């Protein structure tokens, strides 16, 4: 290489720390600025290296194993707040900042970005955007795609480009934020993003409703959603997760509320009444207990350090079909003799199922049995498929990929496109 980049590392420990699906990368770059990212990407283009973007590394097991791991570009040194305007409720942060660090920073200003990823101490903003990560509070606040107002990327040849801005409402130009959100590092490397912020509401609390049957739990969710209550989260937990949150039941409906205190108290009161009506047990969690509860639920989807034979499936349907999907998961579990761990973002109609001790054939069978699966995480590198085909527009997606990465060097083989 004629002009070696100072941030490039071939130190064995560093390389080993960035192992992907058992493959140790040839080299790792840890650029300290967007200019350095640009230089690294430019060099990679010159060398024809494949590039694997890396944030906190907690979601690298999602999708197919990359076909080539020439260079990992880590955002570990891009952790700063670029611009924060508290009174405008906007912030611009570098992609390598962790969700936990951002949460702590914003809390000092009484503000938040209400997305709750697994392992916030390690999960980065860039990684959350790239994987369209979700959290329980999407029930009320939506996904990061609904909060992102601007983005900075470095394109495949090292070219930096931007879209959006630092205002909360903007139709100046196409919505490139949505293009990069959920693109799994296949179109460009995200270096920073701008978000709109929400003031932390004055009060918060949650109610757990213990139900004997899935049917009762789903009826409670449906009644809640047809009401005029506005819970920020509404999750359905199976017996394993119920135990993890310290409330033994076959199924638990976990309802999170935020807002002015009278509003939170009203939600709690109505939810407790709902439990009584449906013969469910209930318990209320407040303050730190509330926070701890939701962190356990958020962490339930973790894809970090999966065991051999462990499979985490992210699935999505519509609320009315959740019962069908859960029945199919139960059947499949019985048929294959494994015990699935299930949690559902019930009011949204999506969720996760975790399975352990599966052979490759069993993992294939699960994925085939669930056309609702939208992401697969596993250490198995031999599966028949890691993605179901897109519902529509596969040709356009291929053209987008060819336009942004003509040589197919960004996260090659990883995604459906």
């Amino acid at each position, binding site marked *: 290489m004629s002009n070696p980049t100072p941030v490039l590392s071939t130190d064995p420990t560093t390389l080993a720390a960035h192992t992907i699906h058992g493959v140790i990368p040839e080299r790792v770059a840890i650029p300290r600025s967007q200019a350095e990212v640009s230089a690294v990407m430019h060099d990679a283009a010159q060398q024809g290296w494949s590039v694997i973007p890396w944030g906190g590394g907690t979601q690298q097991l999602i999708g197919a194993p990359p076909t080539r791991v020439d260079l990992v570009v880590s955002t570990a040194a891009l952790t700063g707040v670029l611009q924060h305007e508290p009174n405008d409720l*906007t912030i611009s942060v570098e992609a390598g900042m962790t969700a936990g660090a951002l949460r702590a920073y914003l809390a000092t200003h*009484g503000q938040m970005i209400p997305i709750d990823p697994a392992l916030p101490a390690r999960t980065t903003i860039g990684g959350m955007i790239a994987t369209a990560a979700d959290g329980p509070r999407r029930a009320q606040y939506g996904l990061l795609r609904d909060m992102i107002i601007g983005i900075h990327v470095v394109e495949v040849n090292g070219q930096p480009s931007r879209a959006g801005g630092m*205002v909360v409402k*903007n139709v100046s130009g196409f919505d490139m934020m949505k293009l990069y959100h959920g693109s799994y590092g296949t179109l460009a490397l995200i270096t920073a993003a701008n978000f709109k912020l929400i003031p932390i509401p004055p009060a918060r609390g949650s109610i757990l409703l213990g139900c004997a049957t899935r049917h009762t739990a789903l009826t409670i969710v449906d009644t809640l959603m047809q009401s005029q209550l506005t819970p920020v989260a509404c999750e359905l937990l199976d017996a394993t997760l119920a135990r993890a949150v310290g409330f033994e039941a076959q199924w638990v409906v976990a309802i999170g509320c935020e807002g002015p205190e009278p509003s939170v108290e009203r939600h709690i009161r109505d939810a407790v009444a709902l439990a009584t009506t449906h013969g469910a047990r209930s318990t209320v969690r407040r303050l730190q207990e509330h926070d701890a509860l939701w962190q356990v639920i958020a962490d339930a989807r973790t894809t970090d350090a999966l065991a051999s034979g462990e499979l985490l499936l992210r699935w999505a349907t519509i609320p009315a079909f959740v019962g069908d999907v859960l029945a199919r998961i139960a059947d499949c579990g019985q048929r294959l003799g494994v015990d699935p761990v299930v949690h559902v973002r019930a009011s949204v109609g999506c969720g996760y199922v975790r399975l352990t001790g599966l052979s490759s054939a069993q993992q294939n069978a699960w994925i085939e049995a669930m056309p609702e699966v939208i992401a697969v995480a596993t250490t198995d590198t031999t599966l028949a498929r890691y993605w179901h085909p897109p*519902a529509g527009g596969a040709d356009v997606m291929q053209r987008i990929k060819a336009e942004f990465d003509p040589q197919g060097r960004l996260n090659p083989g990883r995604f459906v496109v």
Partner: protein
Amino acid sequence: MHYSGELIRALQAVVGTRGVVMGDAALMTYEADGCVMDLHAPNIVVLPQTSEQTAAIVKIAHQARIPVVARGAGTGLSGGATPIHGGIVIAMTRMEQVLEVDAANRRVRVQPGVINWELSQQLAPHGYAFMPDPSSQKACTLGGNIANNSGGPHCLKYGMTTNHVLALRTVLPNGDLIWTGNGRIDTVGYDLAGVMTGSEGMFGIVTEAWVRMTRLPEALRVVLALFPDIPSASQTVSTIIARGILPAALEMMDKLAIKAVNGMYKLGLPDSAGSALLIEVDGVSDGLDELLAQVVGICREHGAIEVRPATTAAEQAQVWAARKNAFGAMGRLSPSYYLVDTVVPRTKLPAILAHVGDVAKDFSLPIANVFHAGDGNLHPLILFDRRDKKQLERALGAATEILKESVRLGGVVSGEHGIGVEKRDYMDILFSTADLAAMAGLRKSFDPLDLFNPGKVFPARTGCGELAELRQNAIAANDIDALPSGTWV
């Protein structure tokens, strides 16, 4: 240019003779939308009734390499529906069915010609609404809302159209008809519904959409606060937000706008008022009165001269009607107006409004302000007489000044009306060549032949095709200096 008899017969075979509009007089209706600065008639207008017909029309156009412009109600304000290169206008107004109200899943499937207001009227008996509510909601269509990612007063709390679109059935520029998803937001692959929303008819033509319906709030409170001037009302907005209150809407009017609506809606607002702030809070009824009291307290803290709660539904409707029809009320003050749409960071509102006042003086034209204060989205209305060429020039000059100042203050050039043809030459004030080239690359992925709504969004000097080519060459040559990246954050 006139199209061949063969082409016309092919179109008529798809939609019937009544679905094809020709003749200069009939085509005049389609030569502009609400932005009447640039006029251009289409060669032909086609009105499909189904997705399949729309796809067949596009296939014919694609084969003949004819530009296609989709059009809803034509209420757009940026020239998005103006066929500046002629060609075929596909008017979606005959596709106006609400196809499926799916209350269990809080979504509704609509055709693009459904009128925004009528959708919410249909959903109201179920206890739901489609939340984006542009001021033109009684006329504008869902298809237009999606193409422009429309906003409205309530997007402060509920988000823009993009936050309410779940899946789109779309005719692509080559005539392919696709669904972007199964009617839910989580999909496999790139977020096509996400990038198509707000793409101003340049990526595809929406023929059906799954959109969210939102449960109507249990209760709401509306209050109209009058202030002696703009800064005191702006400061009130900042304080409300800073205290952690997220109202459903925060709308402001200045003295001139108050004068216009006062006469028309008999609101009886005092002449001494320099600005009016309309505040709505909603949610469960518990705690809402306390919240309102807190908001009223903040208004008084910042020197409100009068705070009027609109307690009954009728009073609330009257206040809202005054706000939503404020643009129409300008007719009482001036024969025409130029409505500028721009956004600044919220805290820059007093600065930009002071600048707007200076611009009004410099260009000797009255400017009224009616705007979404909570979002920092302002809408200066430059009052002038279109028949006077000099006034028209001054109006355009005044708009340019306001847009440049918005960008200088950290804002952008459009908050909810879109770029279209009106703002395309402001795009390079805001974005670098590299930024625009990435957008051009995305556009090219959908429309390699530049057939759908050509000439929009990208600067006239450097169009979409040219930008996309520059970018591909830079990637091929691995040259990152070919495209200047600018310094904008």
